[in-house]
């Protein structure tokens, strides 16, 4: 078994200097990566439970959905939001590749573009989509309103957190804290962002699309 040590290791003389210069073997995953993976797992489970709740409440005793004369959700704005959010994963991926290949401009530009697209998503959501919906119903109207605003709101909060992470990564990148060997923060920020995107697909399918059936 070929072992890759990050440094000089001599069991018998029992001295070891953590020099930490070589990148770890690509197969191996650092603790921080596992930590993020598990964090995402918990979060995904939360959303999973919420989607299950949505369908449970809908099918339990609601013959008409949306109830109380609320109209079928229109798809225009949400599709536009999807466009912003889903494309934002591409620059994020470029940033990730950039840091791995040591291309700092890719990194910085990717993060910035992704950030702007994410902001765009939130602007449409809070500036256009929500006001329109609130004219029709509120979380207090009935269980449909409660579900709609909870799930979209929670997702929006996740976008916000993702943006905060992105900003963090930009500051670090600007200060030159990432290089080919040290960029776990960047990987984790990207992983979280992709996760937020994927969840959006489910939010979209559940809240905007599924009522048509």
């Amino acid at each position, binding site marked *: *078994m070929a072992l890759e040590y990050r440094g000089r290791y001599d069991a018998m003389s029992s001295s070891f200097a953590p020099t*930490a210069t070589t990148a770890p073997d690509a197969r191996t995953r650092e603790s921080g990566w596992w930590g993020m993976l598990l964090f995402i797992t*918990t979060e995904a489970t939360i959303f999973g439970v919420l989607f299950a709740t949505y369908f449970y409440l809908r099918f339990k005793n609601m013959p008409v959905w949306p109830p109380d004369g609320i109209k079928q959700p229109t798809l225009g704005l949400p599709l536009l939001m999807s466009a912003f959010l889903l494309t934002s994963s591409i620059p994020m991926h470029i940033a990730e590749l950039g840091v791995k290949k040591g291309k700092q401009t890719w990194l910085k530009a990717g993060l910035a573009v992704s950030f702007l697209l994410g902001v765009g998503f939130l602007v449409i959501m809070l500036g256009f989509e929500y006001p329109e919906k609130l004219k029709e119903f509120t979380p207090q109207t009935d269980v449909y309103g409660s579900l709609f605003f909870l799930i979209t709101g929670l997702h929006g909060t996740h976008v916000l957190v993702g943006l905060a992470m992105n900003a963090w990564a930009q500051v670090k990148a600007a200060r030159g804290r990432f290089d080919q060997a040290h960029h776990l923060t960047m990987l984790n920020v990207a992983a979280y962002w992709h996760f937020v995107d994927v969840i959006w697909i489910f939010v979209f399918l559940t809240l905007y699309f599924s009522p048509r059936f």
Partner: protein
Amino acid sequence: MAAIAERLTSIWEETPGLASWLTTVDHKRIGKRYIATAFVFFVLAGLEAMVIRVQLARPDQALVSPDAYNQLFTMHGITMIFLFATPILSGFGNFFVPLMIGARDMAFPRLNAFGYWVFLFAGLFMSFSLIIGKAPTDGWFNYVPFALTHYSPGLNIDFYGLGIIFIGISSTTGAINFIVTIFKMRAPGMSINRMPLFVWAVLSTAFAIVFALPSLTVANVLLELDRKAGFHFYDVSHGGDPILWQHLFWIFGHPDVYIIVLPALGMVSTILPVFSRRPIVAYPYVALSTVAVGIVGFGVWVHHMFATGLPQLSMTFFSAASMMVVIPSGIQMFAWVITIIKGRPVYTVPFLFIIGFIVTFLIGGLTGPMFAAVPFDQQITDSYFVVAHFHYVLFGGAVFPIFGALYYWLPKMTGRLMNERLGKLSFWLIFIGFQVTFFPMHIMGLLGMPRRIYTYQAGLGWDVWNMISSIGSFILAAGVLAFIVDYFFSVRRGRPAGDNPWAADTLEWAISSPPPAYNFESIPHVRSREPLWEQPGLPEEIRRGTAGPVLDEGHATVATSVLDADTEEILEMPGESSWPVVTALGMLVVFSALLVSHLALAAVGLLIMAWGIAGWLWNTGDVTTL
């Protein structure tokens, strides 16, 4: 040799004083804190139970008002489950998992500290409610619509809803930390099939937490939105549904009982072989059943809802699943008993508690599949028979092993042996007291006594049994008291324990008692499942610095691969930090603000949290070890 110890000490020892009390990240100090804090909660909840037992000793008593009684039994249940059983087991995990796997700390030491602070603050938050007489009154599973504002105005239920979300943060971070620690920090050579069974158990538990807790969190978020913001998730008149709460709660609730019992079973599988003087029988089966319980446990939750009028098909399915979940427990039960048969048992106090566990858990386990038989459950659910079942499995399955573990491991933690005489006295009082308290509850249940009643009429055949039960609870309390006395006596006067007083096999016994700040002078290379039995020279090698890497030039430990535990890299571990406690304090502010619906204050709390997290991450360099 001494030189190595000195160098490592200078690297690993934390600065003494109050400041380091707040900033420590040492898994041993944190573990001890978890255990001590949780034990205090145990005594509190136990005292609440004593009031309950006195109130119920005779019919038609009015020692406490109905409202006070409801607060007491609710806080008793919540405290025992969320503030005692779960955290004390993570306390043991914290202290011993790194030692058992030959690591110098948990994977994320600061996250570990954070988890403790959140647990402490959430515990204080919830307990505060009882002090101001506004404790939750809807039982530990808090059914709606009773828990909605219309029937429960006031802060009582909000202490529950917010407190549970709060403490869930601690459990989740703890679980993630355990998983990564066990995946990545095992000493070289400790492949997955050489892990001590306690470590297996902690691992399955942690996974169960990751998947179960979100459901509870969501349930309580919906509840608080209904209560505080006028949402309608549980409100029938606006399309909500009260049964939704029951599903969400029990999807968490049933896995949770295994979350509690699994680490305890792991302790049994670790301690029992030591005193049977042989390795456990059928190790692979035991390890796999640990995992199986964790998984199958997710498919049985509806057995708590058999009386709600669900479709018969669904009941049939969950009945079958609930019977299936028995099998892994059966495997473990027979593995333990056969280990004793094939071994040469030595009757020390920890071993007595383990035997007490076998007897008690067996009885409690056997009433489990009875409920899985739907018609019987429909007859007996929500009666004292259920109260009997769950005390037999919770106290029998978790608390007996915990006492066993305390007697077994306290010498390692304090460096002093406990007193055998007092220990035996404590065991017999607890064992006899327990049976006398809880066995009659089976009969009370069969005689038609519902649970959660603050009093009952005379002449229904319940009087005698309640009296017996209440008497038993005093014997039980005396046993707990004997343990407490023993502890305080032993930490001062106990005989020095030495490194390995029980001649045990796992790595924590290779080092001195109490363990030094750096745990291992050199990280051992593990070649077997029972390292100290198969490699008798190991402790000496570890001490001399020849067992493996010493890593004495930085705050470092070894990271290994997930399955085979091949060395991968050297991790630089973070040192003391004040950011975890700051972040946790911010959270306390947020939750307290939400409790009183003070949004501005909540924003302040969020800012404190953000500040804490930013400070924390900024000093991390690259986030490999939070």
